[in-house]
C-alpha cells in the first residue's frame, strides 16, 4: 500500500441543505491512499451526504475537500475520476453488461482493443466473464452488484465510493459479497470509501471506520478498537451489543472509579470520560465480558435472577435482573457446563472493572 496519508482530505467541511440545519458539522477526515474506510451511522447521520460531496453531487457549504492534495470543490463530478457504486446499482438498463462497462472507457476515448481488454479483465475480476451480452435485467441481484463494482473499477479510478451497495441483497449473498469486495480491494489496492448502516459489514471489511451521528464523526478507528474501546456511549450502543448502567460517580482514581447506580447498588468501572466525583455516567459492558460463576477473582461480583432464556443454537441469550437492571444480557456458550441456566434461577455474575467503561451519561 502506498503511503499518502492524506490522499482524501475533508477539511472543516460543513453542509446544510436549508440554511437552518447542519447535516454535516465541522468534518475533518483524512483517508490514506489504498485504505478501505467505512462511514458508518444511522440514517440521517450525514454519512451519505459526505460521500455525495466527495463524488461531486453536492457542494460543501463551508470548508474544502482535497483529492491527492488538490481542492476539488469546483471540479464537476465527471472530471473527478472517482468511481462510484450506487445503492441500487444504477446499471444502465438499456445497455448490455459490456456496454455498461465500456461506458466510462468510451467517454474517455480509449481504443476499442483497449476497451475489450479492460472489460474482460474487470469482468473476470468479479467472476462474470461470459456475461458481456446480457442485459442487467437478466441478471440476479448479486450479479448486478458485481457488474456495478466492475463498472466502478474498470477505468482505474483513484478512489471508489460505495453507497450501501449491499443493502438490497439477502443475508447470505451479502456476506459473500462482503468478502468478495474486500478481496478485490486487497488485490488492486484502490482507495475505497464505503457507506453503510450495517455494523457487521463495516467491521468485516474496513481498515478504519468512521462512526457518524448527528453530522459528526463520533469515533474514527480500526474495527477492533471501535468494538473494544468505544469512546462514548453512542458508539458503544451502536456497535455490537451492550449492557448499560446509569449512575453517579462516587469516587474516581486513575484507572478505576466507583459508580452508584440509579437503581441501587455500586459497581467498579474504567473511567473513560469521567473526571470527577458527582458526575453522571453511563457504564457500558459487553455481554461476553461478564462471566457466570467466575473462577478468578473479579472486582465486580453480583447475583442476578434469570428472567428469560432464548435459545440461539450455538449460544444462549440470557436476560437477567442484575442490580435492578432487568435488561442485562448474557451470552452463554452452548456447552454442558452451563446446564443450570433455567428460568428463575439465581446465578453469580462477575466482570473486571477494566471492561466496564464509564462513558458520558447520554
Amino acid at each position: 500500500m502506498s503511503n499518502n496519508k492524506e490522499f482524501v482530505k475533508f477539511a472543516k467541511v460543513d453542509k446544510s441543505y436549508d440554511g437552518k440545519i447542519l447535516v454535516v458539522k465541522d468534518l475533518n477526515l483524512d483517508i490514506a491512499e489504498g485504505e478501505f474506510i467505512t462511514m458508518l451511522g444511522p440514517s440521517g447521520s450525514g454519512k451519505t451526504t459526505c460521500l455525495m460531496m466527495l463524488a461531486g453531487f453536492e457542494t460543501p457549504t463551508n470548508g474544502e475537500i482535497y483529492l491527492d492534495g488538490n481542492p476539488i470543490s469546483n471540479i464537476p463530478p465527471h472530471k473527478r475520476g472517482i468511481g462510484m457504486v450506487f445503492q441500487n446499482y444504477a446499471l444502465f438498463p438499456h445497455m448490455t453488461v459490456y456496454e455498461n462497462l465500456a461506458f466510462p472507457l468510451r467517454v474517455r476515448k480509449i481504443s476499442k482493443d483497449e476497451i475489450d481488454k479492460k472489460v474482460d479483465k474487470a469482468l473476470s475480476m468479479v467472476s462474470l466473464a461470459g456475461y458481456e451480452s446480457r442485459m442487467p435485467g437478466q441478471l440476479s441481484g448479486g450479479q448486478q452488484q458485481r457488474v456495478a463494482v466492475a463498472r466502478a473499477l474498470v477505468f482505474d479510478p483513484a478512489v471508489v465510493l460505495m453507497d450501501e451497495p449491499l443493502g438490497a441483497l439477502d443475508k447470505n449473498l451479502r456476506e459473500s459479497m462482503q468478502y468478495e469486495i474486500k478481496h478485490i480491494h486487497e488485490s488492486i489496492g484502490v482507495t475505497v470509501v464505503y457507506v453503510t448502516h450495517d455494523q457487521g459489514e463495516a467491521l468485516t471489511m474496513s481498515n478504519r471506520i468512521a462512526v457518524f451521528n448527528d453530522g459528526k464523526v463520533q469515533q474514527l478507528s480500526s474495527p477492533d478498537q471501535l468494538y473494544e474501546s468505544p469512546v462514548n456511549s453512542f458508539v458503544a450502543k451502536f456497535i455490537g451489543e451492550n449492557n448499560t448502567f446509569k449512575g453517579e460517580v462516587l469516587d474516581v482514581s486513575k484507572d478505576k472509579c466507583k459508580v452508584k447506580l440509579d437503581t441501587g447498588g455500586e459497581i467498579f468501572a474504567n473511567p473513560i470520560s469521567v473526571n470527577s466525583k458527582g458526575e453522571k455516567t453511563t457504564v457500558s459492558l459487553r455481554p461476553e465480558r461478564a462471566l457466570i460463576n467466575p473462577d478468578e477473582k473479579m472486582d465486580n461480583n453480583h447475583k442476578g435472577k434469570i428472567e428469560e432464556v432464548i435459545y440461539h443454537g450455538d449460544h444462549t441469550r440470557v436476560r437477567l435482573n442484575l442490580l435492578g437492571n432487568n435488561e442485562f444480557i448474557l451470552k452463554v456458550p452452548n456447552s454442558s457446563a452451563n446446564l443450570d441456566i433455567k428460568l428463575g434461577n439465581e446465578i453469580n455474575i462477575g466482570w473486571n472493572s477494566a471492561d466496564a467503561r464509564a462513558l458520558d451519561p447520554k
Partner: protein
Amino acid sequence: MTSETNKILTTDGIPLEESLKKAERKNKIKAFLLVCPLLLFLIITYVFPIGEMFTRSIDDKMITNMLPNTFKSMESWDGQDMPEEEVFKSFYIDFKTLVEKKEHGKLGQRLNKEKNGFTTILKKLFRQIQRNKIDENGSFKEQITSLHKRFNNVEYWRAIKRTAPPYTMAKYLKGMDLFIDENGSIAQVEEDRRIHRILWLRTLEIAFFVTVFCFLMGYPIAHLLATLPMKYSNLLMICVLLPFWTSLLVRTASWMILLQQQGIVNDFFVMIGLVSDDNRPEMMYNKVGTYVAMTQILLPFMVLPLYSVMKTISPSLMRAGKSLGGTPFVAFWKVYFPLTIPGIGAGCLLVFILAIGYYITPALVGGASGTLISNQIAYHMKTTLDWSFASAMGLMLLTGVLVVYWIYNKLVGVDNIKLG
C-alpha cells in the same frame, strides 16, 4: 405436450387438465360477464358505426333499385355500339315507374354526377311522358333518340351501365381527387379542382409539426415535473392539467382573443416596438393560428406519458453516468434520453393521431389555409349532406391512422409504449 403429462390424474382420479378446466370455468364465465357490458358498448358505439360508415361509403344501391329492368337488359349489351330496342324499352318502363313515384328527379341528380347533361334530357323525356306523347306500341329507340341528340350518344348509355353495380369506389377516388372517366379508367380531376389532396397533405404536415412542437415543448416540462421537489412539481402539474379542466371551445376562443390582429399578443408586439401599429402580423385564420392553438391544446397528451416514464428513471442513473466520466450532455444523451423513448413514442403517437383528426380548433382559428381534412368531412356531413363521401373520407382517415400505428410498431414496437 407429451403423453405422460396427459396422464396426470388428480387424487380423485379425474384427469388433471379436465379438473383444472372445471375449476377455471366458473371464473371464466364470471370474467366474461364482467366485460360483457363493455363489449356490447364497444360493438354498439364502435364496430357497428364503422361498419355502417363503410357500407354507406361504397353504397350505390339507390340507382340499382331505380332502374332494375334497364340494368337487366343491359347485361347483354357490350357497350360498343348503341344499345338495342330492348334496353330503350326497359329504360322507358323504369323511368315511367319513377315518374309515377315522383322520384325521377333523384335519378337525374345521380346520373348527372356520372356524366353532365343528364338532367336536361331526362326532363325532356319526363315532359313527353307527362303529355302522353310516347307511343307505347312504337319503337322506343326511335322515339327516345329523337328527343335529344344526347340520347343518341352512346357515351350516355355507357354512363348508365357504369352505375349498374350496387357498390362503387367513386367516393374514395373523389377523396383523392380521382374519378372514373368515360372509358372506365381512373383519372385525375382538373388541376384547379384538386382540393382534397392538398388537404390531406396539409393535415399530415400540420399533425407532424404539431407533434414536433409538442415534443420540443413537452420534453423539458415533463423532465422538470419528474425531477422537481414535490411541492413545486404539484403546482406545475396543475398548470399542465389546467387546460384539461377548461372546455375546448373556451380555450380556442381565448386563443382567438390572443391572436387576432387587434389582440393581446399583437398589442404587446406593438408596445415593445417589435412591429409597427399599421403592420400587425396575421396570426389567426391561417396556419400559424392552427399551429399555436393545437400545440397548446395537445401539449398535455405529450407531457403526461413522458412524465410517467421519466418518473420511473432513477436519478442515480444520471449520477452514475456523470461519475463514470460522462459530461452532463453525454450522460443525458446516452443514458437518460434512450430510457425516455417509450414515453416519446407514446406521446408522439397520441398527439399525432389526435392532431390528424382535429376539427374544432382548426375550424375556428384555421381560416382557409389552416383547415384540415376533418373540416372537409364535417362540411360534407352538415352542408352538402353527402354522407357517403364524408364516410369514405372518415374511413380513409382511420386507415391513415392505422398505417401510422403500423409504421410506429415496425420502427419502435408497440410493446415499448408506456402510458404510466
